[in-house]
C-alpha cells in the first residue's frame, strides 16, 4: 500500500534510528582506549593501559565480585519463584489469578525509586542491616518478572495435551515433568535466567536503596562518573561490560526466537 517514496523514506528513517542507537555505544567504546586522562573528543591516542589499571584496582574488583554474587543469587531466586508463579497462573484457575499475574509484573511498571523506597523503609522498620541479601531481595523483585514472562509465553504456546498424553501413557507426575514439561520450558528458563542475570548485574536505582555502604559494580561506576574520578578506568570497565552483554543477549534471543523474548517485560 506504500508508494516507493514512502518506502524509501521509511528505510532512511530506520537507518537513522539504528545510527542514533549505536553511535553513543561505539563512541564510549573508543574512549576506553584513550591515552589521555582528559575525556574530550577526539581522543588523544591509543592505549591499553587503562585495562590493566582497572584490572588491578582492588575496589573495582570487589565491586565486580559483589555484583556477580548478587546477580547469581537474584537469578536463582527468580528462577524458582518465577517458574512456579508462571505454572500456577497458566495451568490453573484460582481465586485472584489475575491479581497474582498483575502483581508479579508490577515491579517493572513501577518507577524505580518507589521499589527502592519501599524496600528501604521495610528494611529500616524491620531493623534489617544492609547486606548482600538485601541487594538480592531488591533485585529479585524485577528479575522474577523476566523469568515469569519467558515461561508464561512458552507455556501459552505448548498444548496441555502433551502432558495429558504422557499421563495417559502411564507416566507419573514426576516423570511427566522430567521428560515432557521440563524439556519444553528449558530454553525459556535459560533465556530467562540470562536476562535476569543481565538485569541484576546492571541495576543502579533500586540497588542504591538496598546496598547501604556496599559497592556493586554499577554503583562504583556511578559514583566515579558523578565525582569525575578515575574516569579512564571507568571507560575500560564500561567497555568490558558492553562487550560482555553481547553474548548472553544474542544467545537468549536465539533460544526464544519462537516466542520472542521481545522486550525486558
Amino acid at each position, binding site marked *: *500500500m*506504500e508508494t516507493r517514496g*514512502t*518506502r524509501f523514506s*521509511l*528505510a532512511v*528513517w*530506520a537507518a537513522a*534510528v*539504528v545510527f*542514533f*542507537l*549505536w553511535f*553513543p*555505544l561505539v*563512541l*564510549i567504546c573508543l*574512549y576506553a582506549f584513550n591515552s589521555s586522562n582528559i*575525556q*574530550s*573528543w*577526539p581522543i588523544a591516542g591509543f592505549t591499553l593501559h587503562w585495562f590493566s589499571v582497572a584490572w588491578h584496582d582492588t575496589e573495582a574488583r570487589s565491586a565486580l565480585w559483589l555484583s556477580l554474587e548478587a546477580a547469581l543469587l537474584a537469578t536463582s531466586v527468580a528462577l524458582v519463584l518465577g517458574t512456579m508463579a508462571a505454572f500456577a497462573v497458566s495451568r490453573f484457575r484460582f481465586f485472584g489469578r489475575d491479581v497474582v499475574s498483575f502483581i508479579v*509484573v508490577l515491579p*517493572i*511498571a*513501577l*518507577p*524505580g*525509586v*518507589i521499589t*527502592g*523506597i519501599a524496600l*528501604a*523503609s521495610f528494611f529500616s522498620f524491620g531493623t534489617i542491616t544492609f547486606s548482600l541479601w538485601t541487594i538480592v531481595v531488591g533485585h529479585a523483585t524485577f528479575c522474577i518478572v523476566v523469568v515469569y514472562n519467558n515461561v508464561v509465553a512458552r507455556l501459552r504456546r505448548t498444548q496441555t495435551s502433551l502432558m495429558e498424553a504422557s499421563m495417559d501413557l502411564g507416566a507419573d507426575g514426576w516423570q511427566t515433568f522430567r521428560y515432557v514439561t521440563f524439556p519444553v520450558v528449558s530454553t525459556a528458563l535459560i533465556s530467562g535466567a540470562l*536476562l535476569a542475570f*543481565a538485569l541484576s548485574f*546492571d541495576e*543502579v*536505582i533500586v540497588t*542504591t*536503596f538496598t546496598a547501604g555502604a556496599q559497592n556493586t559494580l*554499577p554503583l562504583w*561506576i*556511578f559514583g566515579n*562518573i*558523578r565525582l569525575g574520578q578515575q574516569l579512564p578506568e*571507568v571507560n575500560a570497565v*564500561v567497555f568490558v*561490560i*558492553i562487550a560482555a*552483554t*553481547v553474548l548472553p*543477549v*544474542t544467545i537468549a*534471543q536465539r533460544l526464544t526466537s519462537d516466542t*520472542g523474548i*521481545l*522486550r*525486558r*517485560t
Partner: protein
Amino acid sequence: MNNATYRTIALRTIGIAALVTLTDALIAFPFAYYMARLASRRTRTLLFVLVLLPLWSSYLARIYAWRLILAHDGALNWSLAKLGLPTTGVAYTNTAMWIVFSYVWLPFMILPVYAALERIPDSYVEASRDLGAKGWTTFRRVVLPLALPGVVAGSIFTFSLTLGDYITPTLVGNTQFIGNVVYRNVLGLSHDLPFAAAYATIPLLVMGVYLTLAKRAGAFEAL
C-alpha cells in the same frame, strides 16, 4: 508539599516524562512500521538484534556516553565546529535530559509497537484496499487503531522509567527530579524518610492513573 520548589520539581518530572514518551513514540513508530511491514525477513532479524543489544547493554554506560558527547569539549561540539556551525551549550540542561531519556528508553517503545504492527494480518490491509481505501486512509483507519495498544504499552515504560529515574538528572542535567528528592531524603544529607515516602506517592498516583487508562486502552494484552 505546598512548597513551590517541590511542586516545580514534580511538574518538571511529569512534563519531561510526557515529552520523552511523545518523542519516543514519534521516533519508534515509523521505525517499527518499516521493521514489521516492509523489511525482508533477514533485515528484520538484524534490526531486532540491533534494537535489543542497546536495550540490554549497560544503562549507565549509555548515559555516560551522552555526558561525554554533549560535554563542552565533546563529540557534538567537535562535529558542529567541523561543519562550521556554532557550538552549543546543551550540556547539563533540561534539553540534555530530554535527549538522553529519549535515547535510553527508545527500545522500550520500539519493541511493543513492532509487536503490535506485526500482528496485523495482511488481509486486513488488503480488504481495506479492495474496499477502495487509499494508502493513507488504510493507515489511518486500519493500521493506526490496531497499533495503538502497542504505543500505549511502550509509553508505560518510557513514562514510568522517566518518572522514577534520578541517575540521568544527576549525570547530564542540573535540575532536580522527583527521584533526586526521594533519593536525597532516604539516603542523602537531608534525611527525612516520612517526607520522601509522602513525595514518592506522586509518581505512584500518576502511574496508578496511567496504568488504569492503559488497561482500558487494551495495552496490557500488547505488553
